């Protein structure tokens, strides 16, 4: 295996594609390679060429979650999403760009079952064990997206700048289809460089998990209020980070038998999040 250390983002993107993969913090890529879920002959180390650090509303994609969680410039929802993610060790290695591109924790997918998301015929979780899985957007694939940070950024209305384009974060994700099982719109040779995160009047991230630390979300709820408008986004409930148009949209959820409880928890956390960001009444 080859490790490249490019000196510019152009050099990096030209080395990507053709089965090579970008390596930043390595907290996701390395385990996936060890498990044989990602095979790559070439790794492109991008830490030196992707911006990192915080400048006003702009966050370099190479910034670690550990740096974000302690920076007072960062909106509360994002800081809380970082603090409640993973463990201190993982947060000091993992970058925000990499966090947005995490794969699902679905055990069938992680164990390499020939499942629909891997390109196979069927979703094993739908009829199998799925208490950690999706409650919406789960018709084809019941996997749940694990990123706390993505939900916070969706609620905050973040935009993404890559080596090719600039767009709303929501456009980074797509529900996989029969023709294309990818959950992001990122091209193989495209790198996330920077995020722009508007400063809300109030924001919050609430997370239900199976233990008090180092656990992926059962349900994560982010809410951000800009003046009188509040946006809500959910983690751990769909194959991609999920924007909730309104609290009432939860009544249209399509839970599996084993994920119905997630809808109950989401209702409560959405209510609490909205209370948490509500404008002070005079």
């Amino acid at each position, binding site marked *: 295996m080859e490790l490249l250390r490019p000196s510019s983002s152009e050099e990096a993107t030209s080395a990507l594609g053709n089965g090579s993969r970008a390596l930043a913090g390595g907290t996701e890529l390395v385990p996936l390679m060890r498990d044989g879920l990602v095979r790559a002959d070439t790794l492109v180390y991008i830490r030196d060429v992707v911006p990192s650090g915080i400048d006003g509303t702009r966050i370099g994609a190479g910034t670690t979650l550990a740096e974000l969680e302690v920076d007072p410039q960062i909106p509360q929802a994002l800081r809380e999403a970082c603090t409640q993610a993973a463990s201190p060790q993982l947060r000091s290695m993992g970058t925000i760009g990499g966090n947005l591109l995490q794969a699902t924790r679905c*055990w069938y997918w992680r164990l390499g079952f020939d499942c629909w998301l891997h390109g196979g015929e069927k979703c094993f979780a739908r009829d*199998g064990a799925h208490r950690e899985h999706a409650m919406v957007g789960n018709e084809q694939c019941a996997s749940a997206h694990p990123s706390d940070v993505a939900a916070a950024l969706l609620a905050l209305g973040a935009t993404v700048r890559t080596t090719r384009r600039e767009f709303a974060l929501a456009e980074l994700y797509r529900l996989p289809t029969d023709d294309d099982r990818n959950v992001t719109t990122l091209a193989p040779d495209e790198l996330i460089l920077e995020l722009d995160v508007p400063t809300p009047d109030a924001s919050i991230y609430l997370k239900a998990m199976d233990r008090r*630390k180092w656990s992926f979300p059962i349900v994560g709820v982010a809410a951000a209020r800009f003046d009188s408008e509040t946006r809500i986004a959910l983690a751990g409930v769909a194959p991609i980070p999920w924007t909730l148009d309104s609290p009432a949209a939860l009544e249209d959820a399509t839970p599996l038998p084993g994920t119905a409880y997630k809808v*109950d928890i989401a209702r*409560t956390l959405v209510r609490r999040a909205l209370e948490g960001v509500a404008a002070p009444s005079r």
Partner: protein
Amino acid sequence: MARLIRTEKEVEGRYEEVWIVVDEDALDQWPAGSLTTVGRRVPRVDGLARVRGEAPFTADLQLPGMLHTAVLRSPYARARVTSIDLEPARSAPGVRAVIGPADLNQLTDEPGYVGHAVAAVAADTFGQAQGAVERIAVKWEVLEPLLDPDEAVRQESFVSDVAKYERGDFERGLAEADAVVEAEYRTQVVVHNSLETHQAVCHWDDGGITIYISTQYIWGIRASMADHLGLPPDKVRVICHAMGGGFGAKNGPGDYTPIAAELAKRTARPVRCALTRREENVAAGNRNATIQRLTAAATSDGTLVALGGDFVNAVGFSGWSATTEGPMKMLYACDNVRTTQYPAKLNLPPMAPFRAPGFVEGTFALECLLDELAEKLGIDPLELRRRNYADSDRTEDRPFSSKNLAECYRRAEPHWAKRDEVRARSEGPWKHGIGLASQIWYGGGGPPSYAWIRVGSDGRAQVVTAMQDIGTGTRTAMAQIAAEELGIPLDHVQVSLGDSARGPFASISAGSSTVPSMGPAVRSAAADAKRQIIEIAAQRFHLEDGVLDLRNGEIVSAGGGSWPLTEITGLLESGQILGQGARGPNPAGMQVLTFGVQVAEIAVDVETGEVRVDKIVAIHDVGRVINALGAESQVEGGIIQGIGHTLSEERIDDPSTGSILTRTLDSYRMPTIADVPEIVTDLVDIPDEHLTNLGSKGLGEPPIIPVAAAIANAIRDATGADIRSLPITREEMLRALREADAREKERRGAPAAV
């Protein structure tokens, strides 16, 4: 004089009759309470070596030329290997040997669970071995697995006989009852997940084999591997100096030891076979799931008149069926008890004993049901337990060697009395409550076990016995016992253990037996050395030996004289005083058991199902405490492991294929430090006057036993919800709350009872 006796030997609730030779246990017990070192808070003597990374674990061992093993494990819960081609693996880079089902009994061509070992490769590196395993070509005939325990009972698929028990007349008891409660409880599969995975390094030399292994039973490995290899036992040397946890899963050689031995033989090289974390979560044993359908009945004064239950142990493909019904039979003085235990054989990975197997699961169900009964009767739960206090063992009709559960209850009172105060902390969705649960378990240890001791001319002593310290602080406790008896400072005692070629036979470290089995032997060896020193001193000082004693490193006489110990031992130059000791018998005709009660304070967010444990008070009666600090650590470890069992840990299997889905520590969720509550340890510390020269019982297992029930009962106190299954996930908590809500609505809406 050596005495031949026929006695019962108990490990983890399983009895066998054995012949043993014991020495008379002539020593009187020490007076109760803290002594010079025994009973004190003593830091681990090997603590520094452990935190500095110097303690030699099997996982650290690197022998010259050592090969590494990867094992091909069945991906199917039930299958037949119709053909297997090992050749592609043999020609892979770095490969030194490949073995398959035809080469070793532990490798199968009819796997009965996911993870069953089929073939193994030894190569220069672990990566090469793994790569070669992937090249083994297997054709499988996949068969329908049996995964449902109730279905196994219907098909009479059992690993052993169905165990029936009845005393008194259950039906008559039920008929006399004023209140009856019935419920079905389920407990999950949990995995030991020791820090150090199961592993062994085998090395053939001079017609014999040396086995370095992470084990709880050096002598058991020696015996079983000698038998397996057809060697005289003294040709099998077993070494374990430090180990990273066992919890019951490391009592035997597993598949990895015979695999390493066979590959080492074929390659004439040392071979390591170490399970990966993923294999550890699949094929290293587990606490099996249970289904318990229980009935409890009492008269209006709270007297239990009937206890009964069907207990299904989902044992897995092999292993043994633990006494899940044990607490129901033993904990209370009920005249009418009827239990049936079904040992279901399934196409799931085999059980291995896990810290009080059976009693952890059985206590959860029984003690939850008892609280439901208490509410129905309108009797305080602690009072109900007192009214049914067992004064003797009703299963064997024997007296207890000692029982101080009443004292445990007395000490629990101030914590229990805080119920109203704790409930009053409830605010918004967070409801607070207190619950308690009792504990009964074995832990008496037994013979045979031996220790030697040698005292040098410098007045320092070394204890030599081929036991193991499984991480529980054994080295420290044994050093304390020897120092106490010899009257020398603790740091003048060294303990040499961990090697079957150095020292005599020693007990298994399972069933909470290490201190009660080994401690008396060590004391007896120290007493033997002390007697010799006093005899020599009496001759030297022209005194009667009856007036001499050893204290604080000095020989003291009744007349007030004192001489440094080295004045006598120093005479010997290179000579040594050698003492030897043996574990005496357990008290004949008595039941040796441990007892306790735990009080849990919890809070529940009734809207999200989050359960938070705020505090656990653990009060246990385990006889004399040797190391108060080490004992506290044991209690804390047991409670933390119990919290994992209660709230977050669960091995999840695919319901149709029996594949294990939780193979890593991010999906199999053990508690982190953030999940650990305030833990208060209160040990009764009264020596069992009938048990050995120490009066000490074991403490490894008791603390985990009542945790789940105490938490579930506290949840009931806080919310009125009845927990029925473990772990208490968000969905189980929300389900129980919904059910309690519906019951409450029905009660309010229903017409008044006539």
